[in-house]
């Protein structure tokens, strides 16, 4: 496997392919961030599936597996799907999610039917049109990578130029509208950029899984940062790494299409991020448990102090049992006491009796909840 990887990176053809996968990753990471921020993850899914009939039709019309016509066909049918969705929701009572579901199945179904038909045709060797379903990066040649690069450059350029306008579009389109920015044009521009990302992902990832390539890196990146700029950059990085790793993996194990291999990589990163990032599931649980422990400690300290005050002696000792009285079941006073002892705030005197130390008395004074809150 390792030898293979070395071989892969030193081989010219292989380098071309990896370059293609990396560029695709950068573009889909950036562009996918917008789909996620606009809560339009589903739209990406619909558009990528809807590209299929366009691909096959373009092939049928041109007759050879030529790149440019296929890209154009894919883009046109993806855009057509969005157009149909808008038309249906604006002129009927059908809700957007149902409309998207219908558009996806109708377009993708049509695509599959056409694909089956084309593959039955006698002459053409059909040059693996079905590769567009799950992607086959090995088929990438220099010219493909060039087109991927150029289309990607266009997408990045648009995002760079209209950075602040796109931010308005995602965060507060009404407000943007009142300042004279045409939100409709910006919406179309974002759609165009998403379509270009989908188109260049057709060969590498395929129509079925392309939406994950858009969404998963952005979702993962969002977990690690609170700034839109770093989110976009991180998403690009995650997607590029996954693209390269996935392509290498699929080449290493014969017969795995690249699409699934790439998506497995992205998903692992996304999954890890959702669980373990600073805002992740486990991190929050862990923080929760820790702050609960802190609060319990403070609480025990306070009770010890209050009880001692009743005896007019801040250092008065009390039994552990007394301290546990009145607190909830499952509140392990002993644990808190041990922790406090380690911190030097309490000391045990005789059997299970505890009292505040000097620094403990000092600490209690700082325990106003308002002071801690900020």
């Amino acid at each position, binding site marked *: 496997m390792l030898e293979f990887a070395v071989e892969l990176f030193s081989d010219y053809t292989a380098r071309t392919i990896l370059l293609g996968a990396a560029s695709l990753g950068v573009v889909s990471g950036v562009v996918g961030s917008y789909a996620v921020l606009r*809560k339009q993850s589903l739209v990406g899914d619909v558009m990528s599936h809807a590209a299929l009939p366009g691909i096959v039709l373009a092939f049928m019309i041109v007759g050879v597996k030529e790149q440019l016509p296929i890209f154009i066909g894919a883009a046109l049918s993806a855009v057509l799907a969005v157009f149909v969705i808008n038309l249906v929701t604006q002129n009927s009572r059908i809700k957007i999610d149902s409309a998207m579901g219908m558009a996806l199945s109708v377009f993708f179904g049509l695509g599959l039917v056409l694909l089956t038909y084309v593959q039955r045709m006698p002459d053409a060797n059909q040059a693996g049109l079905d590769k567009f379903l799950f992607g086959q990066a090995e088929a990438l040649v220099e010219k493909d990578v060039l087109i991927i690069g150029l289309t990607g450059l266009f997408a990045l350029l648009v995002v760079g130029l209209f950075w602040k306008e796109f931010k308005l579009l995602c965060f507060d389109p009404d407000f943007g509208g009142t300042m004279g920015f045409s939100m409709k044009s910006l919406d179309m521009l974002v759609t165009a950029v998403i379509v270009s990302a989908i188109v260049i992902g057709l060969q590498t990832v395929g129509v079925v899984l392309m939406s994950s390539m858009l969404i998963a890196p952005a979702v993962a990146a969002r977990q690690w940062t609170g700034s839109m700029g770093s989110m976009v950059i991180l998403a690009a990085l995650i997607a590029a790494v996954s693209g390269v790793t996935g392509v290498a993996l699929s080449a290493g194990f014969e017969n795995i299409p690249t699409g699934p291999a790439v998506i497995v990589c992205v998903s692992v990163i996304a999954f890890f991020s959702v669980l373990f990032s600073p805002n992740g599931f486990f991190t929050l649980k862990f923080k929760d448990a820790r702050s609960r422990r802190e609060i319990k400690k403070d609480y025990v300290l306070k009770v010890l102090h209050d009880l001692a005050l009743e005896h007019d002696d801040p250092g008065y000792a009390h039994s552990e049992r007394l301290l546990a009285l009145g607190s909830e079941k499952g509140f392990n006073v002993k644990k808190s006491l041990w922790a406090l002892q380690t911190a030097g705030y309490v000391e045990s005197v005789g059997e299970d009796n505890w009292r505040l130390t000097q620094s403990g008395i000092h600490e209690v004074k700082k325990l106003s909840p308002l002071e801690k809150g900020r």
Partner: protein
Amino acid sequence: MSGRGENPVAPAIRVTDLTVAYGDKTVLWDIDLEIPKGSMVAVVGPNGAGKTTLIKSIQGLLPRVAGVISIHGKPYEKQRKEVSYVPQRGSVDWDFPTSVVDTVKMGSYGDLGWIRRPGRKEHEKALGALEKVDMLEFAQRQISQLSGGQQQRVFLARALVQSASVYLLDEPFQGVDATTEKAIVTILKELVAGGKTVLAVHHDLNTVSEYYERIAILNVGLVASGRVEDVFNSENLMKAYGGKTSFFPERKAARRAV
């Protein structure tokens, strides 16, 4: 400081024959409304009366069936820069990955125009606005970590950055505590004292007389508009709210007079 495009005699906002519908449902019906310059105006009416719709359609955010909007005597489209907007707080996703100061900076995007990015000047301006709403210490914080009242202050700061002469606010006091409400009112009154015009959707009928000079009472149609003393009475409120209102401005005024 009069704004760029002000006509000294024209009202700050003039709405003529405004009618707006969603599908086949008429939400605003033939509204005629004039807001004099330098006044502080409440828009009141029951839920669903069309208050938000009015604010949005003044700014051309919704297609109108009919109607003309003019700001300082010129069509709204030519006067965008004269109008600042504070949307309802709940209208955006506060989990959006951005900081407080960057959100406030959005108010300067209109002046910047297409493509140009905010720079140092815009940053200073945003900080100034944050200071006005007493949020300077939160400048670098994520907007997802703000309380409701703080969110409202951020929105107000963003509108202040626009440095317009007409302010349209949609429920600026929704879900904020008494301190924030007082702070916002003070800022709005300062704006009015400086010759600006403020139009705010307002829900608490108890504070109308205290905060505003003028009022527009709305329920699909315009029930009444004018000075608070003249039109804020139970007759008009009954018309707008139906029998559901138990608020009687006259009694309150009488109590205050005693």
